[in-house]
């Protein structure tokens, strides 16, 4: 009988990945659910627009929140999908191609998202 999730790896990178999934998961429990509650339930896409985001990003608090959430979510997601790919793709070539694609997509979008959060300039009062 197998436990929930993957059995804890013995050592090395796999052990760190295992620990990271649990720490980031716990952080995302608050970050992602908080984000959904604020941006999709209390506020929602009816009243979120450029002005809303500009006001939100006028102070560093929400930028920091979003940046931490983005990094945790992306690395958690990439590592989770890696587990799924390794489970289902056994041909060596396809496995390499799929894992490399996953890493490239994850890296590019993590960069894009970070740049968007860090470089956004709220326009002066208009």
């Amino acid at each position, binding site marked *: *009988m*197998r*436990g*929930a*999730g993957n059995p*804890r790896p013995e050592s090395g990178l796999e052990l760190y990945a295992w620990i990271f999934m*649990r720490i980031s*998961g*716990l952080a*995302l*429990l608050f970050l*992602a*659910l908080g984000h*959904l509650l604020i941006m*999709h*339930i209390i506020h*929602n*896409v*009816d009243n*979120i*627009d*450029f*002005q809303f*985001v*500009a006001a939100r990003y006028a102070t560093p608090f929400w930028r920091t929140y979003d940046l931490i959430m*983005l990094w945790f*979510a*992306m690395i958690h*997601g*990439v590592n*989770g*999908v890696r587990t*799924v790919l390794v489970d*289902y793709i*056994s041909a060596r070539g396809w496995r390499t191609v799929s894992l490399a694609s996953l890493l490239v*997509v994850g890296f590019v*979008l*993590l960069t*894009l*998202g970070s*740049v*968007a959060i860090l*470089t*956004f300039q709220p*326009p002066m009062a208009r």
Partner: protein
Amino acid sequence: MVKPLEYLTYRGGPGHWSWLLHRLSGIGVFLFLLIHIVDISLIGWGAKVFNRLLFLYRHPAFRVGEVALVAAVLYHALNGIRICVIDFWPETMAFHRKLSYAVGIAFTIIYIPTAIYMLSFIVK
């Protein structure tokens, strides 16, 4: 390798369904995250470009998708707690079935009012 049909016929019990739902919800949330990064990064191009994009998010089809997204995140979060509980207190394996059901019950209690509330924005 498990064939798609075997997912429906394999009798793994609640733990098997938890495992499957955790995977599917995780993949779903991950795919949404990729799209979400692209759309939000458009804010760097200014108010016009960003606000023009919002028609997409206000479309009823997207709003329903948003309700499904909340389901995926909520289930993944609650089931993630169950995974951590069993990982760090292995003796809880003794009632692992009950834990899976507890996740289902907690999900239902939180999700149903949330989904109704979110859908009420679309209908109004």
